[in-house]
């Protein structure tokens, strides 16, 4: 298979997957159980994503420290962007200093 076909198949497939949820029939979406599921499922997905992105490829001390710093920033009610900068700075600095 040509590499272009793989690129095109990925583009089309990814779009259709995105479209499928959005275009689910209203009758199904309006069911209370489906609504409950749809409201809660992003929490499970995003929490899982945080875990996999942080620890999926093994434990990394600077990255873990960066996330811990982000948690502290959140507890101190830091604004959104500050939280991101703190996480990147702590992780980057610890790496540069060779931790």
């Amino acid at each position: 298979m040509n590499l272009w076909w793989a690129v095109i198949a990925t583009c089309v497939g990814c779009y259709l997957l995105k479209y499928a949820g959005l275009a689910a029939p209203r009758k199904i979406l309006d069911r209370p159980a489906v609504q409950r599921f749809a409201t809660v499922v992003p929490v499970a997905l995003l929490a899982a994503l945080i875990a996999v992105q942080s620890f999926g490829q093994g434990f990394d001390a600077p990255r873990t420290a960066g996330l811990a710093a982000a948690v502290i920033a959140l507890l101190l009610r830091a604004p959104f962007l500050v939280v991101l900068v703190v996480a990147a700075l702590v992780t980057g600095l610890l790496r540069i200093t060779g931790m």
Partner: protein
Amino acid sequence: MSARNDAVRAGLGVGLAVGFSGLAFGAAAVTAGLSVAQACALSLFAFTGASQFALAGAVAGGGALVPAVAGALLLGARNGLYGLRLATLLPSRLRALTAHGIIDETSAVAFAHPGEAKTGFYTTFASLYVTWNLATLLAALGASQVADPTVFGLDAVGPATFLALLWPRLKESAEDRKVAVAGVVIALAATPFLPAGIPVLLAAAGALVVLVR
């Protein structure tokens, strides 16, 4: 008004911060053997980071292309689940365009700003689409000059973004905390045994914990 500003600020912030990892994708894609045009096509038309990295990684590994595409699609499947919720929050007349923007980041910003989901979603979509594609192009053109993004700690930005966006819900609702813990446990337990993409999808079952009671 300030809720709206919050959503705009979060959207622009995510666009700026996460867009940088487009550099990593552009570099990874070209190093893997994709052409500049192929790397850009993926960012323009697939526009879902995890799937794009998965395809580039599989190509770099020299594997067969059918499983490479299948792996990329597995990672894209969760976008369909976000769509179930976004369908009730976003206008349906823009559906074909809106669908293209459904990824982790746009969904997370939308859900984090319940009253301003629309503003959050489209601001994030627009800003991240621009930065992600520019970064892909720049890095793909000069792959060798781009340093490893982990040097700048950019690998911590992704999880920190989702954590910050999820934070208010976790603080407020014990139920959401339970679901989050279930999701984390399922995903981490499954990661060593299953191909990328499946552990996060399986974590969706964590949401069932609340539903079956």
